[in-house]
C-alpha cells in the first residue's frame, strides 16, 4: 500500500509499505478516505519530537471504511464509514473511565505522560498513522465512530481532532457569560477555539497571529476581533490596553512549540532544541491573562522543559488547564453541532491533495504557502 514515509527533518515521501495486520482481537483495519495534516504533525516533520523514527507514517486525523475487524470487535463492522479519534483509548482504564480518553494508560508503552496517538512518534506509542491507504486501528470498540448518514466527509475528518481540540480549549477556559477570551494562534485549532468560545457565552473573542490571511479568515469565520502581533511592540501590553488594563479573563494557547515572536524562544526552542519547542505563546498567555484568570493550553509541546514565567502563575493566582482533547467524550455534542449547522468545520479546509503529493502538502502547510490553512490528503482509492 502507499503510505507517507518520514525520512528525517523536513523530508517525507510516499512509498509502498506492507499492509497493516490485525495484531489484537480489538483491532480493525481501516481503508483511509481522508487524512489531514495537523499543525502538530509539523513538530514531527521538523524533527522536534524525540523518538520519531525514520520509516514511520504520520497522520492522526483520518476517516475511512472498515475493511477487517478482530475477533472481539462488535461496535463497528466491515463496510462501516468511520471517523477515528486521534487518541487510542482502551475505554477501561482508570483514566478512560474518567472521560480522559486522551490519557489512556493501556495504549502507550514508551511514555506515561501521554496516551497512544496515531502516527505521532514512539513517544506516543509507535503506531503508524492514517496518511496512508490503510491503517491499523486498535481498540476499535472504543474510538471509531460511524459517520452519521449525510455528513460531509470533510466535516467528519475535522471531527477527529480539530473541532474537539478547539472546543475543549474553550471548555477548559471555564468561560463565564460575558468573558473576554484571547486566543493565540489562528491555525485550524485556534480558529475553532475562537468559534467555540462563543458557544460557551464569551462576551468578546480576540485572536492574535502573524499571518494576515489567517486573521482575515478567522475574523469572518468566528466573528472575532483580530490583531497581528508583528505590528505590536509588545502583545502583552497591547492586550492589557484593550482590556481596561486588567488582562483577559481567559487566554487560550493554540500555538504550541512552533511559536514565533521571540528571538530567544525561537533560538532555544526551535533552532537548537534546548527547550521543548518555543513557548512564546504560552509565555504571552500567562502574562496577558488577568489575575485569577484561566490559561487553557492545547498547543503541543515536547516532553522536556520550557521557559515560561511560572512565578507569574503563582503571583497572579492563575489556573492552568491543559490536555489532549478527549475526542470520544466530546463527539456526540460536536456531531450535533455540525448537523445543526452551528459549526461548519469543512470551511477550514483549503487544500485537497493526492496522498502521493504529501511532501508538497507538508511544505505548503509548514511554510504557509498559497494561504494554506488546512490540507487534506486523499488516497487514490478515494478519488473519483
Amino acid at each position: 500500500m502507499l503510505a507517507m514515509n518520514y525520512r528525517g527533518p523536513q523530508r517525507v515521501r510516499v512509498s509502498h509499505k506492507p499492509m497493516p495486520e490485525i495484531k489484537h482481537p480489538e483491532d480493525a483495519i481501516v481503508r483511509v478516505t481522508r487524512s489531514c495534516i495537523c499543525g502538530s504533525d509539523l513538530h514531527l516533520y521538523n524533527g522536534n519530537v524525540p523518538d520519531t523514527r525514520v520509516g514511520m507514517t504520520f497522520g492522526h486525523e483520518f476517516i475511512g471504511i472498515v475493511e477487517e475487524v478482530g475477533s472481539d470487535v462488535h461496535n463497528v463492522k466491515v463496510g462501516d464509514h468511520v471517523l477515528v479519534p486521534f487518541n487510542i483509548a482502551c475505554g477501561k482504564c482508570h483514566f478512560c473511565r474518567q472521560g480522559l480518553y486522551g490519557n489512556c494508560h493501556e495504549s502507550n508503552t514508551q511514555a506515561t505522560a501521554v496516551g497512544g496517538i496515531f502516527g505521532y512518534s514512539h513517544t506516543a506509542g509507535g503506531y503508524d498513522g492514517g496518511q496512508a491507504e490503510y491503517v491499523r486501528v486498535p481498540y476499535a470498540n472504543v474510538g471509531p465512530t460511524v459517520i452519521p448518514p449525510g455528513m460531509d466527509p470533510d466535516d467528519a475528518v475535522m471531527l477527529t481532532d480539530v473541532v474537539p481540540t478547539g472546543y475543549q480549549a474553550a471548555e477548559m477556559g471555564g468561560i463565564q457569560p460575558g468573558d473576554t477570551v484571547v486566543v493565540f494562534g489562528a491555525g485550524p485549532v485556534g480558529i475553532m477555539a475562537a468559534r467555540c468560545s462563543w458557544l460557551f457565552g464569551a462576551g468578546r473573542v480576540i485572536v492574535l497571529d502573524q499571518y494576515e490571511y489567517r486573521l482575515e479568515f478567522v475574523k469572518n469565520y468566528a466573528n472575532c476581533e483580530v490583531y497581528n502581533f508583528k505590528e505590536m511592540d509588545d502583545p502583552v501590553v497591547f492586550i492589557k490596553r484593550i482590556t481596561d488594563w486588567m488582562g483577559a479573563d481567559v487566554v487560550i494557547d493554540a500555538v504550541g512549540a512552533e511559536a514565533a515572536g521571540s528571538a530567544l524562544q525561537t533560538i532555544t526552542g526551535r533552532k537548537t532544541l534546548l527547550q521543548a519547542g518555543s513557548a512564546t505563546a504560552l509565555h504571552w498567555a500567562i502574562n496577558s491573562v488577568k489575575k485569577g484568570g484561566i490559561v487553557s493550553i492545547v498547543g503541543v509541546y515536547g516532553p522536556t522543559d520550557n521557559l515560561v514565567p511560572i512565578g507569574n502563575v503563582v503571583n497572579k493566582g492563575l489556573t492552568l488547564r491543559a490536555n489532549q482533547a478527549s475526542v470520544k467524550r466530546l463527539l456526540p455534542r460536536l456531531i450535533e453541532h455540525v448537523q445543526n449547522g452551528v459549526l461548519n468545520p469543512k470551511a477550514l479546509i483549503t487544500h485537497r491533495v493526492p496522498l502521493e503529493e504529501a511532501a508538497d502538502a507538508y511544505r505548503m502547510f509548514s511554510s504557509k504557502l498559497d494561504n494554506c490553512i488546512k490540507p487534506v490528503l486523499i488516497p487514490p482509492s478515494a478519488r473519483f
Partner: protein
Amino acid sequence: MENTTNDLTAIGRDYSHIKGWGIDADPKNDPTYPIRNRPDGFVGQDEQRGYTWERPTQQPVDVEVLRSIERPTVSAVFGTSTPPSGLSGAIRRYAFKYSESEYGHWLPLLLADRVNMVEGIIDDFKRGHVPNIFAERGWKAEWKHDPQGLTKKVLIGAAVTAAVFVLLRRKK
C-alpha cells in the same frame, strides 16, 4: 449541559448574529473537572491502588518494544512501526534506562533520531534507491508558490557551503 441562554441575556449585549451563542454555557464547569469526575468504584483508598481495572487482552509482544521505566508492564496494545535497529536502536535502548523525567532519556532519543536519518540514507543507497531530497523537501510546491523564497534559500545554502569549503581549503 445546562442551557443558560436566558441567564446570559442578563449581560445586556445582543449576540443574535452569532449562531449558537451561549448554547454550551455551563456555570458548573469549574477548573476542578475532571478530577472531580471520579468513576464509580474509584473512591477513597481504591483510588491509590493502581491497576484496579480489568485490563484489555494483551497484544502478543512479537517485536521489540521499548518500555518506559515509569510503568511496570507493556501496555495492552502498542504500535509495531519501525522497531529499534542499528546504532540508533542501541542509543534508544540506552535512553530507556532513564525515566521520562531525565535528560538522559530525551537527549539520547533526539540523537538517535538524527543518527537514524543517516541510517535511512545509507539504507536507501543499499537498496539502490537514490533519495530525491528536493522532492522529499517539497521544493516543487515551494517553487510554485514562493519562487523568490526558494531562490533565496538555495543561494544562502550555496554561499554557506562555499564559505565552509574555502575555509577548509585554507586550513590545509
